[in-house]
């Protein structure tokens, strides 16, 4: 049951990194992809209906950690106090910017909202990687490399998402941005990804597991494949590849954290009682498929590419 809930939490974080990954990338690239207010609306419009739902993946992941592994939740958040504080502050600035930019006056006020979106997206995307990098190695270098990995992959993923969801000049700029982001993401990935299974080498009978290494190698392969597919303008497949790369990276990360997600704390020690986990399992089994269905449906509703809309406003 403990292992099952660890996998559930890994799944929730994976959903969060894949979905909000492109939100962060789109937010970070906003000023680079658009030259006019109409184009900015086009770029923001790609994530407009879905970003808030994507963020709930994190809220659910953190909530599930609280319920299933209270000591992991409280240990992670209190030992990374300032980064977590900055992540929350970044999410506040970004969320308010996204919701308010259409309701404030054009000009300085809207520019301020856009600055909030960019700053919040870059900061938060960097910090998540930095936190996990630091968790695995506890060195400044690992922290920076982790942050750069999550930021550059988010930007790549977001750029590919924009190529998939737009038409016209924005789409062309997003393709160039994706290739530029790949120039950073691929080298960082080559350094960072093998370091994840390597960090768990001293855990007996586990870290040597070939599965973790396979995940890390496949994550690298998916990342490179994504870049190649962008180059060949196969946008749908490129997005699938970058998403897959994030899935595999997160899987490697959580694999490396098993069975001790924090130094000196095993999952068994951190876990809630079997009764609680059983109850949560039953409710999760009913609720999660429903969530997946209606969130999937919302992506289906907004599946069309966005054109530049000059008429509104």
């Amino acid at each position, binding site marked *: 049951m403990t292992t099952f809930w660890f996998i559930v939490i890994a799944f929730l974080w994976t959903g969060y990194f894949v979905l909000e990954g492109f939100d962060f990338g789109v937010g970070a690239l906003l000023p680079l992809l658009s030259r006019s207010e109409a184009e900015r609306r086009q770029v923001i419009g790609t994530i407009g209906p879905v970003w808030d739902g994507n963020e709930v993946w994190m809220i659910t992941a953190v909530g599930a950690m*609280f319920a299933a592994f209270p000591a992991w939740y409280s240990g992670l958040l209190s030992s990374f106090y300032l980064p977590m504080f900055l992540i929350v502050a970044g999410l506040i600035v970004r969320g308010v910017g996204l919701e308010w930019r259409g309701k404030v006056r054009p000009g300085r006020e809207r520019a301020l909202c856009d600055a909030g979106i960019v700053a919040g997206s870059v900061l938060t995307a960097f910090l998540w990687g930095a936190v996990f990098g630091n968790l695995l190695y506890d060195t400044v270098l690992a922290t920076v490399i982790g942050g750069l990995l999550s930021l550059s992959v988010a930007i790549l993923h977001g750029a590919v998402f924009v190529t998939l969801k737009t038409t016209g000049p924005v789409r062309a700029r997003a393709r160039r941005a994706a290739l530029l982001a790949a120039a950073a993401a691929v080298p960082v990935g080559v350094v960072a990804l093998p370091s994840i299974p390597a960090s768990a080498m001293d855990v007996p009978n586990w870290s040597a597991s070939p599965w973790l290494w396979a995940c890390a190698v496949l994550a690298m392969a998916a990342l490179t494949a994504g870049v190649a597919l962008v180059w060949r303008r196969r946008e749908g497949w490129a997005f699938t590849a970058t998403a897959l790369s994030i899935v595999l990276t997160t899987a490697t990360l959580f694999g490396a954290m098993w069975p001790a997600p924090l130094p000196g704390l095993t999952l068994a020690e951190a876990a809630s009682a079997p009764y609680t986990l059983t109850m949560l399992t039953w*409710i999760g089994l009913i609720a999660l498929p429903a*969530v997946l269905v209606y969130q999937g449906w919302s992506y289906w509703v907004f599946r069309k590419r966005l054109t530049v809309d000059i008429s509104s406003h």
Partner: protein
Amino acid sequence: MDALDLARWQFGVTTVYHFLFVPLTIGLGAFVAGLQTAWYRTGKDHYLTLTKFFGKLFLINFAMGVVTGIVQEFQFGMNWSEYSTFVGDVFGAPLALESLVAFFLESTFLGLWIFGWNRLPKRLHLAAIWAAAIGSNLSAYFILAANAWMKHPVGYEVVNGRARMTDLWAVLTNPTALAQIPHVVAAAFVVAGGFVLAVSGYRILRERGLGVTGRRTAEPATAGAGDGDGDATIPLRRRTDMWRTSLRGALVMTALAGVVVAGTGDLSGRLLHEQQPMKLAAAEGLTRDTAGAPFSIVPGVEVPNMLSLLAAHDPGATVQGVDDIQRRYEEQFGPADYTPNVPVVFWSFRVMIGFGMATVGLSVLGLWLTRKRRGGQPSGQRGRQRGRRHDSRTGEKRAAAPVPSWFARACVLALPLPMMAIIAGWLLSEIGRQPWTVQGELLTAASVSPGVSLAEVAISLSVFTVLYGVLAVAEAALLVRHVKAGPEQPPTIPDPTLTAADPDAARLTPTLMY
């Protein structure tokens, strides 16, 4: 001053701030859904105008509720890691359910609603706003069930220094929760009602060319038209009628919710008597166990036996006093100060009851003032019959009384009352719980994160306070600006090019909501 004090201040500041926005999200979401349902069923344009107008105000506010909520979820772990480790097994479950069951529903369907005006069929689009509103209300259920457990822990046992859940159903149907949830949710509807009353009152005054202070600001020729003299121009009449509709809706909502607040408040008072005697004693400032305890309206003005009547429905019942409970707690739990901040709890209790009752009283008065009268002025709605169903009940026989300008002005001025009442209710509830985080199990002083430094909490507290201050000013300015600007499409100017070709076209024209 140590990390514990700052962590408490941070929790207080961020939670009270979060709760400025949440009641409006809970109540206004349902109100907008109600308006859209009215439009869906009648096809009347003014309902659509109102839906979009209040929908926009709702969204400005919703953003703040969401982002400040993330702070709440994180700071249990960041500042209160000992608490989180102790209670997570029980307290974490409703929080996880809140995200899984409520937040996904709320955020996904709100996205569909905002962007779905011209993409979804009308029926599905209406369902989207209802799903979002239901999500908001469900989230209130889960978080309040978790909160109630702190005050009256049930369905658990303590094993190896940690609470272990033994009965989820008991946690979700905690009597404290079942009294508190309808109380807080209904109070949220009172807050939202007060907000709609203030906005509608302001718009009515503005349409009449009157300011909130009573001075005429514009259009003096039409001023006073709403007072029933019948010589109003038709556009003005129709405009004020639209705001009269939202005002009436809010009056009904506030009055009904007020009944629920009062009833569940009475129930909560009796539960306090049984479960949290210290909070009840502090709320009255009662020092000694007293039979036939009085209730002080303000210090010095007492109603004899009233507190006993409220607490036990028995005028002679004994209500425990602060000093006597302190002595008994010392015997039970060891020497410590078990008394909360009595003046804060005392005054919060009075602000909550006084301001809350004033708001509900205002709504009842408004319902009487705007009631439909035999042989009165015909309603201006009758001219607009493009809807599916013409409302025949507001025909010649019974007509709606116009909203008096003085009442509209009172609605605007009353805006802070329900907000202050609901915040005071939280101060009563949470400061009255001190010094416990979990009543009888865990003290606040033992809940704080041991490894977090004073400097760290000082940084987060000061940045959050500054950031929240700036955002509060921005939100207030945005709301005021949008209320002053009014709806984007005045209902009095139907676009003939749209309506001529296709009667549905006007209704499906999207407004930029985002």
